[in-house]
């Protein structure tokens, strides 16, 4: 096996990343020029969505980004000439449809390319290959189990019913269950009455998925290992649970809530990757008038008498606004950007208890050609979507076993996508880029650290791939490993947790990120949160950014009304 040693090249971000954005050096100096209506800390996708909504509402908005380009974890980098890597986040599904319309993203180049296949190689050289023809899929599953071929339709229908029932919760500000405000009680009653109307079977499935394990749920339908392995894979992504852990059902459900082009659980690859997508957001935000400054790490939020008044950069520059929004994760939002002593102690305690265990890594490859799967030959056709290396539930559970005891999976789960088969602009003709999402790779290793283990992880992944695609190593032109530690260092997500907080039931909805603080506000007046650590959560949904903007605008309208009332009085 020959492996090209990764060469470090100056990363170039997605085309036009800096277009329209001001870098620190050109920032203006007078205080008036540095005063805004709203400042958003962090130019990840939620920060951009939030800033765009605020700017659209007419607020003079500034988005401050630490790095030399926006996008956060949703970036695409040319790490090798002609080869574009989706360094971290790599596909779209859960993006809220109203964001596409409200922010007029199609005008700015929004282009979600269809991922048309699902390819799941098995351990015995066989495979499961699903596509866009329902009848063909049934026959393909029947090849493995006639029972499961029938069960698959029932399962899909049941999941869709649950998704349709749950979806409104995804798109609402969680009601404050600790409040006696009639508006909150009404919202709560609304949820109650919605569930009351549900069919018995649907409600039971909702509860089973929200609280139980994916394995228990899937075992009721399916008998075949390969089919179960594929379906169970979405119950573990980004989360420190195995398919047999209680709670994995929730992760499974979450990943099925995506409704790309109206199909639950369907995924797309944005033109030029998720970096291409955040560039679209950046253009939209700027078209609405938002300003973006790059290379400007924020040190802290400036507060005065319990009210946010601006932000201070690490270099001492200050920007002023009476609305400041943090798109960073809850730890950074509450424990780093502000002095925790300005916050109620129970909030600090809850944030400290908020689990953000990074569990996932990325290993990205530049390839000299398409990998060879012996049973299907060296063709691109079966690679036009995700390739799922998780051939059975046992395989996934064993991969988790390693993580439970502080080590990375020796036979990891891999969600791979050869994105150049979908978007030819990602690699030179005949060459390919391949994104591999790896699990489990716990942030805290028992007897080593990620600086030591980084390339060993790369080797483990490559060895695993070699099992399925003989000769894979010969295709590798370059390899980039991104461990949880790299994610934390580069993107800023604490412990490299891709969802900015685990998808555990006690960390969702009413409780995300902390009981009493799930409505995007903070105890500091004018200081808001809009990152994936808030409801609905991680993945490229934009939901937190959008819902937070709604709250901010509502509050501003109220305080404006109050101010007007006071001035009249």
């Amino acid at each position, binding site marked *: 096996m020959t492996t090209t040693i990764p060469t470090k090249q100056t990363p170039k971000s997605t085309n036009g990343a800096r277009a329209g954005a001001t870098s620190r050096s050109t920032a203006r100096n007078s205080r008036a020029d540095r005063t805004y209506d709203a400042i958003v800390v962090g130019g990840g996708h939620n920060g951009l969505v939030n800033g765009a909504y605020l700017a659209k509402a007419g607020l003079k908005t500034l988005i401050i980004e630490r790095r030399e380009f926006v996008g956060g974890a949703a970036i695409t980098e040319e790490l090798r000439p002609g080869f574009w890597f989706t360094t971290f986040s790599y596909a779209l599904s859960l993006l809220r449809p109203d964001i596409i319309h409200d922010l007029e993203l199609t005008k700015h180049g929004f282009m979600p390319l269809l991922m048309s296949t699902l390819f799941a190689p098995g351990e015995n050289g066989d495979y499961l290959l699903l596509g866009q023809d329902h009848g063909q899929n049934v026959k393909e599953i029947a090849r493995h189990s006639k029972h499961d071929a029938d069960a698959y339709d029932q399962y899909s229908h049941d999941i869709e019913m649950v998704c349709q029932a749950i979806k409104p919760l995804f798109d609402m500000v969680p009601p404050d269950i600790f409040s006696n405000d009639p508006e909150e009680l009404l919202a709560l009653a609304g949820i109650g009455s919605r569930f009351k109307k549900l069919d018995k079977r649907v409600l039971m499935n909702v509860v089973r998925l929200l609280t139980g394990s994916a394995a228990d749920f899937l075992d009721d339908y399916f008998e075949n290992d390969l089919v179960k392995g594929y379906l169970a894979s979405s119950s573990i992504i980004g989360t420190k649970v195995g398919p047999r852990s209680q709670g994995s059902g929730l992760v499974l459900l979450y990943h099925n809530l995506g409704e790309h082009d*109206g199909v639950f659980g369907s995924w797309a690859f944005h033109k030029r990757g998720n970096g291409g997508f955040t560039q679209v957001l950046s253009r939209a935000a700027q078209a609405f008038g938002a300003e973006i400054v790059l290379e400007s790490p924020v040190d802290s939020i400036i507060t005065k008498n319990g009210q946010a008044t601006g932000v201070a950069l690490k270099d001492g520059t200050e920007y002023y606004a009476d609305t400041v929004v943090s798109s960073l994760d809850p730890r950074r939002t509450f424990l780093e950007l502000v002095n925790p002593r300005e916050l109620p102690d129970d909030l600090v305690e809850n944030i400290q208890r908020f689990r953000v265990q990074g569990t996932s890594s990325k290993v990205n490859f530049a390839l000299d050609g398409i990998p060879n799967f012996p049973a299907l030959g060296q063709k691109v056709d079966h690679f036009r979507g995700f390739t799922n290396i998780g051939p059975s539930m046992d395989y996934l559970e064993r991969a988790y076993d390693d993580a439970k005891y502080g080590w990375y999976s020796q036979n990891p789960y891999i969600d791979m996508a050869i994105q150049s088969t979908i978007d030819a602009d990602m690699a030179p003709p005949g060459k390919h880029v391949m994104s591999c999402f790896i699990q489990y790779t716990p942030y805290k290793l028992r007897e080593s650290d990620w600086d030591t283990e980084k390339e060993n992880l790369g080797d483990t992944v490559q060895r695993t791939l070699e099992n399925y695609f003989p000769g894979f190593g010969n295709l590798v032109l370059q390899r980039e490993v991104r461990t949880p530690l790299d994610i934390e260092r580069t993107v800023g997500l604490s412990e490299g947790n891709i969802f900015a907080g685990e998808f555990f039931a006690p960390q969702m909805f009413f409780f995300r990120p902390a009981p009493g603080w799930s409505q995007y506000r903070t105890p500091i007046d004018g200081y808001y949160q809009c990152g994936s650590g808030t409801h609905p959560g991680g993945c490229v949904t934009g939901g937190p950014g959008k819902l937070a903007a709604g709250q901010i605008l509502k509050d501003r309208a109220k305080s404006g009304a109050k101010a007007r009332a006071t001035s009249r009085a």
Partner: protein
Amino acid sequence: MIRKSPFHERTNALNETQLWSHWSGTLAANRYQVSDKMEYFAVRNAAGLFDSSPLYKYRITGKDAEAFLSGILARDIRTCPPGQAQYTCWLDDNGYVIEDGVILHTAKDEYLLTSAEPNLAYLQDRIGRHDVTIEDVSDELGTLALQGPRSRDLLKKLVPQMEKIPYFGVAKGEIGGAGVTVSRTGYSGDLGYEVWIDTPDALHVWDTLWDSMDGHGVLPFGLAALEMLRIEAGLLLMEADFDSSRYAWNDAHRSTPIELGWGWMFKDLKADDRPFIGRKALEREVADKTSRWAMRGLILDWQDYDRVYNNAGLVPPKDHTPVLEDWMLYDDEYKRVGYATSFMYSPMLQRHIAIARVRPDLGKLGSKVNIETTVNHQYELVAANVARLPLYNPERKTA
């Protein structure tokens, strides 16, 4: 016996679904892969190759060719010098559209006219004293459409002469040693070209072209993807969005070019002294403002669409498959104000869209109409905004 296109040997080998339509008595791939949406995206994001050989093609030659055509075609052919092409239509005496087509001015006194239906008798019967020869060359020429953002870069490697041609320009060159004509035309509303090939060279040219595009994300695409592309592009389809006046039973099934949104073809009519079939009626229609309809795009209000389905307890379907039938349009008082003829969910625009005709007073951009659909087997109205065609119009198309 159903006929086969000159490229059939290749398209047949690529057609994994073996789904074929009969287009002008010829087998035409419906879709090559299971997913027509994949083929559609290949065109919008890289390039797609389409076999449009079944189109009718007429070669019109002779020293009076221009004079002859300028009396038949409604759009002024005299503004189309050699090396250019024109989208045009021809009318009956009442100013109703018989057909539309693209005409290439391939050389001095030589034109190539395409049409969806046979028109040889119609054209020949009107030659009169003109020195003109009209031949049906439908079987002598194969046509390949290469459409999409990569089309120019891919084609110029083989036919350098085409690199600089403008929108609706025509160039000649060779592919693999065989003479071809390249026109910057197509039915996708994107950057794109059509290559006109002598039938005996068809397979050789296909192979040379196909091999040269390896690794560039090019897919062959079929009629299903083409249908999606042309609706976004606001390109009308005969027998879907309008009918030929020659075979219509009454005027409800006839349309004037103004009603079809082709008024732009006649913007210089005052300065144009040609007599042509239908001219008087056309002038009367413009002067008296008697057009019955305005051809427009519709963009459905997505929230209203979702609301109607969610209220019915259903997942709002976002199916890209075009539905070509009459969809009634109403105003808020439930008065009928038009009808849509091509309807689909556009993945590029992320909205349901339609090609529709509305009462001329509702033709203003942003006018609101309601489109009728059925949900749970009952009629429901969904709000839609009137928009200009094309609904999807990338700069690269004409740049």
